[in-house]
């Protein structure tokens, strides 16, 4: 049942022209950034070659690319999460799910998975772009994989937060702005912490992504992302369940 709902969400994303437009624009931004990084790398490559432990193409081009996408995710995920529940509530289609013999957990997880599948597509697309580098140089697959995993976890936690905020309102625009504000706040927590060991930093998803970005898969970061997503998913299920009680 979760998969039924997930595939329906995934397919209806592609039924709207705006999704295609966003995908096109994203691809353009990614490509632009990728080429700019690659160009800069080509220029300094001769000097880098003289260094003893010089950064390779993966570290100099792919890792910063993933870092940028992590920032773009912050703006992108709320655009997609806003529809999930808020729009259904506004269009009064939520009744179909509420009156079907499906538990709130299945509905919420289904919607979440559907969106994750879509975000995975975007991330895979970036990874493919980075893989093009393999044509000219030896790639650091470990670094590439840790970046992809980190980005997926980051996107998953953003999606969980966005889904929760979407479940609080009947206005998609409010859901988008709310999610954006929350994610931006979490990012501000990270950059405003002066001390790099500050406990405040531990609250921010972006701070936990930095380890993955540097090729470091830390179990503490992993646990953070899983807990972050789980908490907001549980809150969403609860809120969805209460929908029947408070109307």
């Amino acid at each position, binding site marked *: 049942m979760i998969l039924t709902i997930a595939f329906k969400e995934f397919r209806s994303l592609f*039924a709207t022209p705006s999704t295609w437009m966003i995908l096109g624009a994203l691809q353009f931004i990614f490509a632009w950034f990728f080429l700019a990084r690659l160009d800069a790398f080509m220029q300094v490559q001769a000097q880098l070659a003289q260094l003893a432990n010089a950064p390779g193409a993966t570290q100099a081009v792919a890792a910063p690319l993933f870092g940028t996408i992590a920032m773009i995710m912050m703006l992108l995920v709320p655009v997609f999460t806003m529809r999930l529940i808020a729009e259904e509530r506004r269009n*009064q*289609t939520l*009744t*179909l799910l509420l*009156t*079907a*013999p499906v538990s709130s957990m299945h509905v919420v997880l289904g919607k979440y998975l559907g969106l994750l599948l879509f975000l995975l597509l975007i991330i895979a697309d970036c990874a493919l772009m980075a893989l093009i580098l393999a044509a000219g140089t030896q790639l650091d697959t470990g670094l590439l994989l840790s970046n992809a995993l980190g980005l997926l976890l980051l996107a998953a936690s953003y999606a969980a937060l966005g889904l929760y905020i979407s479940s609080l309102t009947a206005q998609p625009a409010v859901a988008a702005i709310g999610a954006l504000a929350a994610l931006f706040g979490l990012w501000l927590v990270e950059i405003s912490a002066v001390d790099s060991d500050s406990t405040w930093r531990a609250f921010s998803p972006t701070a936990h992504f930095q380890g993955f970005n540097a090729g470091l898969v830390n179990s503490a970061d992993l646990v953070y992302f899983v807990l972050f997503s789980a908490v907001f998913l549980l809150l969403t299920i609860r809120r969805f369940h209460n929908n*029947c*009680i408070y109307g």
Partner: protein
Amino acid sequence: MSEAMPPSLYARNLSRSFGRREVVHDVSLELRRGEVLGLLGHNGAGKSTTLQMLAGALSPHAGQIEICGFDLAHQPAQAKARIGFLPETPPLYREMQVDSYLKFAAMLHRVPPAQIAGALVEIKRRCGLQDSGKKTIGTLSKGYQQRVGIAQAIIHQPQVVILDEPTAGLDPVQIRDIRTLIRELGDTHSVILSTHLLGEVESICDRVVIMHHGRIVYGDSSERMQQYGRQPGFIVTLLAAPELAELQAIAGVQQVEQLSATQFRVLHAPDSDPATVLLALAAQRGWQAKQLAPLQARLEDIFMQITENQ
């Protein structure tokens, strides 16, 4: 419609408030198998809220609902699998195609995958959607959207079908088609529908429940509702009109009123039937009886009478 069968829907003392306003107060309902029950009421009488509670979209603040013996609050999966619900606004995803939407609805209601294709063809035939399968729902007219809404409510062959104003906003031909469909549904399923169109009740409902200010104020069979609070009588046309007093003298006649040169309205006591006597007299005395029509109380009047009495 045997009385011995257990009811397919049973609701006891439902109450529901929004904030401080109590929208539904102590409503009890019973829906027998193969029955079409009409829920009548003005706008804001609490019909939609009641139906939403029955369908499981809204939990009641007090009371209990049983669908085919399953408690909606404690066994929601079993109970909800036996309900098909069309809310006031059909829950349609405008960007989806009719086929994929109905397939999704069937899967949500746990129709076995092997039967979905068959169910889809059958439901499209019943709802007159054969040619609309590949169309995007958002591009369909209101009437067709309503049909898709009804199709999603019955694609899984539920025992109880709950329809909230199924004919709202449709043109007369579509209304007739949908009423025929509902009547057909009534043969195999139990149907409960809300409406503020009294004609709808007359043409399709077996039984009527009237809601007013969140309470049930009247519940009876559709025929008996039409008899409510009305004095029996008829209108008779006599081409060679006699004196008023001659008509008044007939046994059982309580009041005679001359409507035109040849038409008379005759009111009589419920237990007597002066019509036959009158016709016999007319033949005997050459009044030239042309037409005798029983008085049809307009449902609107009955409805107003019932709701105003409260």
